[in-house]
């Protein structure tokens, strides 16, 4: 969209972003700015439009209205110099089932930043995939597959990491691994991480911003301090949803 001014202070910015499909607005009029090295949770119920918004922010889907930028550059129609800075782990899949874990990471590294053994080893180590590296991806459990998909998105050291439902199918250890990963990539590499999820995890190890999306509309956002427990997070989200919908749609805790 011409005439829209995006700020360079944000890693990701959306102005009036919307997507219509089959004459229905899946996401409409979203305005948000995500700072560099921030951890951002995009929460909402099933069908709220989280995945659609994530795909719009990644430049994988064309916006019907508004614009999305990464580091001040519009993502839709952008070249590899912009898009290769984004790592994306979809809710389903994101790996080749016929290849081994190691081969999947090698393929991901080759197409993203060029083959880099050190980056592959690091991604495998962070996501605790070491013992599984020789196994075919198709034979892994769902939680292990999820970790592999995240590792594939992470392997090229992207400046922006978008994760769609990364906590699905993860056991306690898996959750711990992903939480550790987020701390490492945000703090050490300065990566901006956006997570679409029904709710943030139980223990926040790092201060984060939570944006609530409800029926395709962006309800608002709050800063979550480090160490908040699940009950406090839920209460805050409930309050946020109630405020945005005038108190009539208090159902944010169903996710």
């Amino acid at each position, binding site marked *: 969209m011409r005439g829209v001014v995006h700020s360079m202070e944000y890693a990701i910015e959306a102005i009036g972003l919307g997507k219509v499909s089959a004459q229905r607005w899946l996401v409409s009029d979203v305005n948000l700015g995500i700072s560099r090295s921030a951890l951002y949770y995009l929460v909402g119920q099933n069908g709220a439009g989280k995945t659609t918004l994530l795909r719009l922010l990644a430049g994988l889907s064309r916006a019907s209205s508004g614009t999305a930028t990464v580091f001040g550059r519009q993502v839709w129609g952008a070249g590899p110099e912009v898009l290769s800075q984004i790592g994306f782990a*979809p809710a*389903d*899949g994101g790996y080749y*089932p*016929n290849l081994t874990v190691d081969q999947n990471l090698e393929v991901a590294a080759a197409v*993203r930043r060029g083959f880099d053994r050190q980056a592959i080893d690091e991604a495998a180590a962070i996501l605790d995939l070491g013992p599984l590296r020789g196994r075919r991806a198709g034979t892994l459990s769902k939680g292990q597959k999820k970790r592999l998909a995240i590792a*594939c998105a992470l392997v090229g050291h992207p400046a922006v990491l978008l994760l769609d439902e990364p906590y699905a199918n993860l056991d306690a250890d898996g959750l711990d691994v992903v939480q550790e990963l987020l701390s490492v990539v945000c703090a050490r590499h300065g990566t901006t991480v956006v997570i679409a999820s029904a709710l943030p995890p139980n223990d926040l190890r790092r201060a984060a911003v939570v944006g609530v999306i409800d029926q395709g509309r962006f309800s608002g956002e709050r800063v979550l301090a480090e160490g908040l427990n699940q009950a406090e997070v839920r209460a805050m989200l409930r309050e946020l949803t109630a405020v945005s919908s005038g108190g009539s749609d208090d159902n944010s805790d169903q996710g």
Partner: protein
Amino acid sequence: MITLIKVEWRKLSHTSLLVASVMAPLLGSLAVLIIPLRHRRAIWFDYIATNLWLTHALLIPLVMGLVTAYVFGREYTAGTAASLRLSRFTVWQVILAKCATVLGIGVLMTGIAVTTTFVSAMAAGFGGFYWEIVLRYVSVSLLSCAIAVCSVPFVAVVAIWERGSFAASVLAVTAPLSGVLFMAGFASRLNPWGLPMLFVSRFLNLVSRDLLQAMKPVWPTAVVSVMIGLMVTAVMQSRTDIQSER
């Protein structure tokens, strides 16, 4: 670009389709050995004509189509299309690398078919060698390869449009067969209109006559070979799917 092609080959390396690509031309070459002796006249022409019908006109376009459907459709079914889009390569580079891989499969299959044809013809002791026959062999091969190559973009577009490989696979199976039949039928009805058309019609008549003549004594073998090939591919693919589900 070379990196992308290497990556595509690597992705194909553990699939039953690559096995089928190698096995299909071998199947065509070996199938001639089970043709009843009374049909196997002791000249090289019959051997070659039989082999090229099985491998070039049917199996190579078929397998190339299936590989096209797989390499394009798989990115959507595996959820890896996003990672390719967010790579250091442009969309066109990715598409060209995939097409180059499919053409590479075609070259591999043709190479195996030609080599095994010559080797097994010599080993089986077929006699007779005529340049005219070799030229026909080459012309039919080129025609079949052209049909296969022409079907690649259509199959690729269907796979991308459908975001999967099922409909594209169906097209991949039907398009080469329809193409061969259409060309054969077209050639038999074509009249020589002027000199350029005369060349074309002579060429097509030559090709179609060879194909139909070759088909005549070997159709049961051809059908059985194709059925076996498809069954082997289906069984291996289902095993891969089961492993993936686990």
